[in-house]
């Protein structure tokens, strides 16, 4: 466990000196939290919406309890569209950190002396993965907490807050988020084993965000509804994807493979 902690601390002291990584970790969550809060603020100060939930389209009704007015339900629906934004954080941050971490060591030729220590490749891989995943989850959960707090301050109706804290949000933030972070790290390892420029590795690794954006736009177009069934299905699919990516990345992260083939 000590060796894993040493690797995590080493990774953080190195990677966070990179301004690009620091920007991704610090500002991306702020921006992605500010957008839905801004929308809540604008919709709560607008007096354009009235009527009951029964007057809203079926997709809106699915998301709102009967106590909500049409305007309140509209707020819930619009903000729910941006739930997916929080899912970009646990993808982008690990991809950025892992890319600079692994490719940086390749370019520096520092992997060989590291592997010559008693550390096992499992400890090294876990250390590097946690070094990327922990900041991502911290940023996601802190961003979500700020969002809930900000919503509570802006909105007077506690029923709306209750809708933001329903099972779908909790699955997204506390189950899907970690699964996505793991997939981002595993994917970055695969990419980083093949490239020698950390910026290229980071940019290629960001491909992993495309499925999330597809869901976002599908949602906006009304093709996809982020129902509980959809969320649970996503958990299963992500679990399978993670299993495959982790298997591939572990195969690539073997001592001899790193020494002889990672060039």
């Amino acid at each position, binding site marked *: 466990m000590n060796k894993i902690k040493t690797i995590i601390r080493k990774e953080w002291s190195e990677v966070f000196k990179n301004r690009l990584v620091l920007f991704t970790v610090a500002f991306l969550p702020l921006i992605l939290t500010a957008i839905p809060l801004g929308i809540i603020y604008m919709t709560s100060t607008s007096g354009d919406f009235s009527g009951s939930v029964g007057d809203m389209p079926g997709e809106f009704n699915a998301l709102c309890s009967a106590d909500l007015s049409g305007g309140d339900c509209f707020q819930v629906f619009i903000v729910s569209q941006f739930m997916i934004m929080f899912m970009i954080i646990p993808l982008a941050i690990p991809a950025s950190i892992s890319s600079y971490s692994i490719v940086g060591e390749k370019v520096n030729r*520092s992997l060989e*002396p590291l*592997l010559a220590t008693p550390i*096992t490749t499992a400890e090294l891989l876990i250390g590097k993965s946690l070094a990327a995943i922990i900041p991502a989850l911290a940023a996601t959960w802190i961003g979500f907490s700020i969002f809930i707090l900000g919503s509570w301050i802006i909105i007077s109706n506690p029923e709306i807050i209750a809708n933001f804290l329903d099972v779908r949000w909790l699955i997204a933030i506390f189950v899907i988020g970690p699964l996505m972070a793991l997939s981002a790290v595993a994917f970055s390892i695969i990419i980083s084993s093949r490239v020698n420029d950390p910026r290229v590795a980071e940019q290629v690794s960001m491909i992993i965000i495309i499925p999330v954006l597809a869901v976002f736009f599908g949602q906006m177009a009304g093709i996809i509804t982020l129902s509980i069934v959809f969320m649970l299905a996503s958990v299963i699919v992500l679990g399978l994807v993670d299993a495959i990516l982790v298997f591939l990345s572990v195969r690539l992260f073997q001592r001899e493979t790193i020494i002889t083939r990672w060039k």
Partner: protein
Amino acid sequence: MITTQNLTKKFDQITAVENLTLEIPEGEVFGFLGPNGAGKTTTVRILTSLITPTAGSATVNGHVIGEEDIDIRRSVGLLTETPGLYDNLSAERNLEIYASLYEVEDIKGQVEKYLRFLGLWERRNDVAATFSKGMKQKLAIARALLHEPRTLFLDEPTAGLDPEASRLVREFILEIKKQGRTIFICTHNLDEADRLCDRIGVFKTRLLVLDSPAKLRRQVFGRKVVFHIQQADQSLVDKLSLHPHVTEASLIDQKIVVTIDDPETHNPELIRILVSEGADIQFVGELRRSLEDVYLQLVKNA
């Protein structure tokens, strides 16, 4: 102690190391010489359990390669061909990380000890990126010594260093040798190998020869004695050629060069022959071939 038995490593169709058998006793400084691509670094990687052999076996400090790899890594220190330091971290931080990974108990103490030993204590808070090549090499050596390994593997320890830095590194190696550690050096620097090593192995995929520098010279070129004579001529050469222990005699630039086994025993006889023939002997000396000559001759014939 390092022992190998028919150690072989193949990468696809290429044989990098072939049937390497050697034994390096505790406390010896062993030089591993060979041209680029000979398989020296591959051998070091096998012996430090970074890669696995295709065939054969080896033990390092009593631990078997492939079975006790973590124990091997705990007991050896490795200086890689490039230092591989963390450039954004300070010298002290670089060593603290490795001390932790090597499970050193007194991290602060050991880091200070080796930073002082290598003259880097005053620069401990400076990031490694600001260090010169020689200083980076010294920091990398400190990193390899932190956990007090019994065996040290040094891959090209003075490569790219200026003469002063090279001399400092050689002095450290001799200091480490006095501590009784086994040192395995891969080097192209034949002068360095000649000065530091108890024995040398010349390697080109397979071991060509293994012995002390002095014995290697004798083995490849024999021993040659040079007689500086005031007026040397061929008749003196012919007389010396008749001696039963002289294998070759020639006249080169007014000097008679004689190849002979055991000159310490037979030189007085040769001197008596020359004097009896009326030769005025000015100097007598041994023609010392450089290790470079030995190495080039061996590699050429391989």
